[in-house]
């Protein structure tokens, strides 16, 4: 008997756990070996919703769970967006609409492992955005840095080498949103190995401080998340992290702990917003090194 899972009306960073709690238990075990996703309620899905949905499907596939979609209202905006993002082509074997095609503002969903990430960042993500912004690849150092720190962080701390990434450009809003999700151990679980007294929210905030390290690896030295948040806030952007019971938003105004209003997220999801009109295009300029 297949488990029927209703998607929320609006799927974003606030509602993704609604989907996860119906499909995966806290010990990272699939709740059923056959799932039907009921997309009838879905009216809106944002990049984080797409990333987490995809990450969930991929992860359940790896566990041998059979999955299919029930889509009564094919004309809903969210369904069109998913179709144009090539989501159904990838997961159901065919597009819903023949004319569905990747929007110029969307970088297709990518299930990516660490060794591939450097080339993907350079040859796909940076090249695509440079073209969309009519700028040089050299001027997108902040975006590069965010992606580098994100992928290196997943590799160093999640216990996984793979993440699911989706990038959406909003030209009118002059912003780019990057979402990356993994079903690894999660940031709070890592931090609490050395600071068990902290809440999940406090643990994530601590992990973003320069130099805090759990010493799980010599590679990171506790600065990856610090540089990520520093890069984003210098740009006037925002980074939201959900991991375990934590939901932290970091912006130029500091940290907001929204954990009380959120449920449990299995693994970690990052939602990064960068302002394309605030990129520091001088970062890759030649400069003589001096102490």
């Amino acid at each position, binding site marked *: 008997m297949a488990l029927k899972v209703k998607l929320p009306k609006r799927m974003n960073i606030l509602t993704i756990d609604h989907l996860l709690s119906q499909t995966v238990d806290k010990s990272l075990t699939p709740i059923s070996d056959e799932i039907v996703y009921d997309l009838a309620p879905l009216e809106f899905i944002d990049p984080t919703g797409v990333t987490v949905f995809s990450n969930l499907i991929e992860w359940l596939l790896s566990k041998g769970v059979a999955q299919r979609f029930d889509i009564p209202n094919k004309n809903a905006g969210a369904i069109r967006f998913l179709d144009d993002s090539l989501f159904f082509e990838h997961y159901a074997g065919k597009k819903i609409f023949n004319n569905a095609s990747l929007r110029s503002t969307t970088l297709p969903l990518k299930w990516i492992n660490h060794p591939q990430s*450097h080339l993907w960042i350079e040859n796909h993500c940076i090249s695509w955005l440079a073209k969309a912004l009519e700028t040089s690849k*050299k001027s997108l*150092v902040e975006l*590069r*840095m965010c992606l*580098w*720190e994100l992928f*290196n962080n997943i590799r*160093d701390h999640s216990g996984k080498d793979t993440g699911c990434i989706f990038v959406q450009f909003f030209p009118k809003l002059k912003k780019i949103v990057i979402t990356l999700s993994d079903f690894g151990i999660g940031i709070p679980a890592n931090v609490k190995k050395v600071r068990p007294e902290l809440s999940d929210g406090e643990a994530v905030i601590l992990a973003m401080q*320069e*130099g805090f390290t759990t010493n799980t690896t*010599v*590679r*990171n*030295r506790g*600065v*990856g998340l610090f*540089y990520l948040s520093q890069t984003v806030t210098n740009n006037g952007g925002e980074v939201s992290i959900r991991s375990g019971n934590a939901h932290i938003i970091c912006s130029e105004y500091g940290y907001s702990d929204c954990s009380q209003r959120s449920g449990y997220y299995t693994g970690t999801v990052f939602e990064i917003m960068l302002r394309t009109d605030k990129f520091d295009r*001088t*970062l*890759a*300029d*030649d*400069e*003589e*090194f*001096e*102490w």
Partner: protein
Amino acid sequence: MVNLRVLDLVKQAYTYEDGVVISDIVIRTFHENEKVTLSFYGIDAIPSSFANGCFVRVLESFGLQKIKENLSVIDSTKQINSMIKSRLVFESQRNDL
């Protein structure tokens, strides 16, 4: 004086392990009391993991003063310089090196 160009030694300046390839040579050269000039020709920016492997390892072996006196960085950019200094200054203060 030993001249090194990062991209002659590694395919990319991305991971901690990429940085270790460079720092192994720098550490060996410092042990021989030679100075090093390190060129970032062809590289616009580096992440913290690479900086940790490339520079913090050298710091842990020799301290900041030795690096200042014996390591020159050339063909660099604003971001690379900022990352190197930020990582070395922070780690030297944290570990009194």
